[in-house]
C-alpha cells in the first residue's frame, strides 16, 4: 500500500506502550508510528500502561534552559501531552478514530490523575478488547 492511498475499508491498529515521557528514544519512535498510521488511513487505539500513563499528564510544563541562555520560547521543549492532542486533531481532520486509554491502576499509582481530554481512563480489559477488534497490534515493551 502506498502512502496516502485511500483504503476501501478503514482498519484499526492497536498500540500498547509503557514508557514514561522524556526518558527513552522509544517514545519518539512510538509517536512517529502513530503519525504514520494516520497517514495510512488507519484508526488508532492506544493502551498506555505503567509509566506511559504520564504521556498525557496535563500539568506537563515546558521550560527554558539557563545553561544555554534560552528562555522557554527559545528552548521550545516538546511535551508529549501536546503530541497526543496534535495526533487527535490530525485524526479528526482525516475522519479517523484516535482512542487513547490509560490504565487506571497505573494512573492511581503515579497520581497523574489530570490528563488531557484526549485520554480516557480504562483497564487492561480495554487493551484486550481493542486488540481483538483490530487488524493488528504492536506491543512496545520496556526492556
Amino acid at each position: 500500500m502506498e502512502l496516502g492511498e485511500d483504503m476501501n475499508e478503514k482498519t484499526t491498529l492497536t498500540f500498547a506502550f509503557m514508557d514514561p515521557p522524556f526518558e527513552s528514544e522509544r517514545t519518539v519512535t512510538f509517536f512517529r508510528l502513530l503519525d504514520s498510521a494516520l497517514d495510512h488511513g488507519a484508526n488508532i487505539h492506544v493502551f498506555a500502561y505503567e509509566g506511559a500513563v504520564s504521556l498525557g499528564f496535563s500539568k506537563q510544563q515546558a521550560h527554558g534552559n539557563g545553561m544555554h541562555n534560552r528562555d522557554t520560547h527559545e528552548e521550545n521543549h516538546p511535551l508529549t501531552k501536546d503530541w497526543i492532542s496534535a495526533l487527535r486533531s490530525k485524526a479528526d481532520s482525516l475522519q479517523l478514530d484516535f482512542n487513547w486509554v490509560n490504565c487506571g491502576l497505573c494512573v492511581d499509582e503515579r497520581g497523574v490523575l489530570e490528563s488531557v481530554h484526549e485520554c480516557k481512563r480504562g483497564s487492561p480489559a480495554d487493551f484486550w478488547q481493542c486488540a481483538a477488534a483490530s487488524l493488528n497490534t504492536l506491543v512496545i515493551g520496556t526492556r
Partner: protein
Amino acid sequence: MPNYLFVQSQDPYTDRVTDDQFSLMTQLASEGKEVSIFLTQNGVIPAAFQAKCAAFDKLLDHTIKIYADRFSLEQRQIAESDLKRNIESAEIHVVVQAMLAGDKVIWN
C-alpha cells in the same frame, strides 16, 4: 503463513539479548518464513559497514529484507552509502504497512 517483521531497536553492543533475537530471525528464515527487519534507534548502529558484529552480519547472508530507519541513521550521522550490503534505508512507514498487511510485527 504469516510474514514476520522485527522492529530492532536494541543493538548488540549494549544488549546481549540480541544474540538470541538474531538467532530467532535466522532460524525463521531458514525454515522458509518471510522475515524482514526494521532497524531503528541504536539498532541501526551495526548496519554501518565499519561496525563489527558477527552475529548481525550473519543476517546479511539469509533471505532477510533489512531496512534501516532513515531518521535514526541521520541522528547518528550514518549515510546511506555507509550501510552494509543488503541493507536499505527506509521510512518508518515500513512498520505500519506490515501491520496493515497482517504481518506479525515484533518489537525488540
